[in-house]
C-alpha cells in the first residue's frame, strides 16, 4: 500500500507578532503544520507496522520560498520521498486551487492507496482541502479521524465527534483527515535528519502537472466592526450617581433607550 501525506508549511505561529492588527510574517521561518505532522506520523507508523510500503510527503509551497528545504523534516520523520509543487502562480492560492493542484499531483504519482491530511492547517484551519481533493479524485473520505488502521483493501478509523465516537470503514483508495489525538508525532534525531538528505525529493511546477494556473484570489470585504478609541470618561460621586451618569452617557451615545 502506498500512502501520500499532504503537508502544508506555514509561518511558525509562535514567532508571528501582530502589529496594528496585521500578522507580521516577514522573516518568520516556515514549518510543517501540527496536524500534518500527525498525518505523517500515522503514515510512517503504518509503514513501520508493515501495513504500508511507501510514504510520499506532498507539499504545495504556497509562497514558501524554502518549501523544498522545510519538507526535509517530513523525510527526517520517516517519509520515503517528497514532492514539492512550487510555482510563481501558486504564491497565494485559495483552497480550491490547492486541492486542484494536489489532485493533479496525486494522479501523476504512480500509486496512491491512502491519502492523508491534517483536518485543517495550523494557520487558517479552513478544513477544506482534504474534502475537496477527495471530491476531485472521487474518493471516499473520512474526517476527524483519531485512529487510522489499514488492512487489506480497507481503511478503518475512529472519528472524534462531539459526544460520540464513530467507527467508520472505507474501501481503498480513500482520503483521511486526522485530528491531533491520533498520535504524538516523533521529533527526528540528528541521524534521521542526516539520512533524510539522501532521500528522493522532487520539485514540480504547474507545467509538470499539465494544469492551468489558478484564478487569482479574490478580495474579501472585512466584516469586522470598526475600531473605536476609548472615550476615557471617568464618572465620580456615589455609586448611584455614577450609575446615573453612566446610563445618561450611554443614552447620549445612542447605545441605550433608542
Amino acid at each position: 500500500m502506498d500512502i501520500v501525506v499532504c503537508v502544508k508549511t506555514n509561518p511558525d505561529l509562535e514567532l508571528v507578532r501582530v502589529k496594528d492588527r496585521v500578522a507580521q510574517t516577514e522573516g518568520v521561518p516556515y514549518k510543517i503544520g501540527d496536524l500534518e505532522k500527525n498525518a505523517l506520523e500515522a503514515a510512517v507508523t503504518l509503514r513501520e507496522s508493515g501495513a504500508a510500503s511507501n510514504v510520499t510527503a506532498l507539499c504545495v509551497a504556497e509562497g514558501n520560498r524554502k518549501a523544498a528545504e522545510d519538507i526535509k523534516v517530513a523525510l527526517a520523520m520517516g517519509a520515503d520521498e517528497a514532492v514539492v509543487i512550487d510555482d510563481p502562480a501558486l504564491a497565494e492560492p485559495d483552497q480550491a486551487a490547492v486541492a486542484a493542484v494536489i489532485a493533479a499531483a496525486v494522479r501523476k504519482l504512480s500509486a496512491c492507496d491512502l491519502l492523508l491530511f491534517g483536518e485543517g492547517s495550523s494557520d487558517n484551519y479552513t478544513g477544506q482541502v482534504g474534502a475537496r481533493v477527495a471530491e476531485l479524485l472521487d474518493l471516499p473520505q473520512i474526517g476527524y479521524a483519531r485512529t487510522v488502521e489499514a488492512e487489506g483493501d480497507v481503511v478503518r478509523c475512529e472519528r472524534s465527534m462531539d459526544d460520540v465516537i464513530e467507527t467508520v470503514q472505507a474501501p481503498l483508495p480513500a482520503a483521511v483527515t486526522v485530528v491531533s489525538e491520533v498520535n504524538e508525532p516523533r521529533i527526528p534525531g540528528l541521524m534521521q535528519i542526516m539520512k533524510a538528505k539522501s532521500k528522493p525529493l522532487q520539485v514540480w511546477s504547474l507545467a509538470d502537472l499539465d494544469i492551468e494556473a489558478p484564478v487569482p484570489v479574490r478580495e474579501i470585504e472585512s466584516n469586522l466592526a470598526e475600531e473605536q478609541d476609548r472615550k476615557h470618561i471617568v464618572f465620580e460621586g456615589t455609586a448611584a450617581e455614577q450609575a446615573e451618569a453612566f446610563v445618561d452617557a450611554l443614552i447620549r451615545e445612542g447605545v441605550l433607550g433608542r
Partner: protein
Amino acid sequence: MESVECIVVGGGLAGLSAAYGLAEAGLEVMVLERGDYSGAKNVTGGRLYVKPIRGFYPELWDEAPFERPVARELVTMMADGAHTTVEIASDRFLEGGPQSYTVVRAKLDQWLADKVMEKGAMVVPNMKVDELLRKDGRVIGIRAGGDEIGADVVVVAEGVLRLLSSAAGLAAQPQPRHHALGYKEVIELPAGVIEDRWHLNPGEGAAQLFMGDCTRGMMGGAFLYTNKESIALGMVVGMEDMRRRRDGTESWQLLDAFKELPQIRPLIAGGTAAEYSAHAVPEGGITQVPRLAGDGYVVAGDTAGLSFNALVTVRGMDFAVASGYYAAEAIKKAKAAGDCSAAGLASYEQSLRSSFVLRDLETARNIPGVMENPRLFTHYPAAVGRLLESVYTVGEQPQAGLVKKAWNGVRRDFLSLATLRDAWSMRKI
C-alpha cells in the same frame, strides 16, 4: 559511528562564517544550532564594524540585511540629573562605504544561514549538541540527543557560556568577573520618527552610548542603536559588580529607571516594546582567550573570548566573523594536508595573531583592568556634568567669569592625586 568532514557547533556569526568558507571549498559541513533558527537566540547591541571584515567573503556584505549605516556617534555622560552629550557626525564615517551598520541578529544570522545552505552545507536548527566527544585527547565528534556523529574537525562556536568546551576541557569555565550582563529592549518607532529624533538623513543611523549613574557606579553603561524601524535600548553591566552589590537591585530595574529619565523618555515616547533579551558578554580581554585549536577542533567567536568593550567601541561580531573565516582557512589547509591534529590546525592561531583580531585584543590588553576603576562610572561623568552645568548656568547672583567657572571646576574635580593616578593607569589603553 556515522561521520561527516566538519561539524560546526553553534549557528551564530562565528559558526556560520566558518561553515560558509568550508562549504564553499566543497567540504562536507553540518551546522548544529539549538535555536528555532539562526539568530533566534543571539543577542547583540548592536552594530557591526564592517571595515575589518569586508575582505572576507566580499560578495556577501553588499547584500547583507543591515539596518542603518551609523552616521552619528553620541556619547552621553550622566550624573546627578545632568547629561552631557558629545556628538560626532563626521563625513568620514560614511566615506568609502560606512564603517559600521546597526544590525538585527534575527535577520542577519538567518540570512547568513541561507547563504551557507546555498553553498551546500547542512544547517540543522532545533538541534542542541549535548557533548563534544573526546578520545585520547582528541575531539572526534559530537553527541546530540541519542545520536553520536563523528567529524574530522569540530568548530566550537557555541557562544559565550562555553558549556560544551569547558566540560570537554578545551577552555576554562567562564568566571563572572570576566563577563558583563547585556540586556536590551527593542522599541518600535516609525522610520521618520527615528530620523527626526536623532537628526538623521533618511536611511542613516545613530549610535549612542551612556556612561555614569545609569549603572549606579557599576562597571558598564547603556546603549542605544537605531534600526530601520526600531531602536535597541539596553545596558551592559559587569557581573562581578552586580553580584557584589547585594542591595537587591535587579538588572531590569536599572533599565526601567533609565527609560524614565526626563532626558531619555522623549527619545522613546510613543514606541512599542517588541522584544526583551539578555545575554552574557565576554569582557576578560586577551588574557581569557583559551587555546584556539587542538587535535580535531578549533574554537571561534565568543567561545574563544574574542570580544571587547573599549567604552566607546564595543566589538565582538566582527571578531566572530573573522575567526570563523580564519578557522575555515586553517581547516581547509589541514584537510588538504590530511592532518587535522593541533599541528595541522596551527595556522588558525597564526592567522588570528597576525590579523586585527588578536592584535586589537592585545592593544586592548589593559582595558579590562582600567574598567574596574569605579571612578570611571561615578566621578568623571559627574565632574564633566558639574563643570559644563556651571558654565551654562545663569542664576540670581552675579556670575563668576567664564574662565573662572571652568577653572574652579577643573581644580575641584580634575586636579587631584586620584585623577593623576587614573590618568597614569590609562596611559596604556
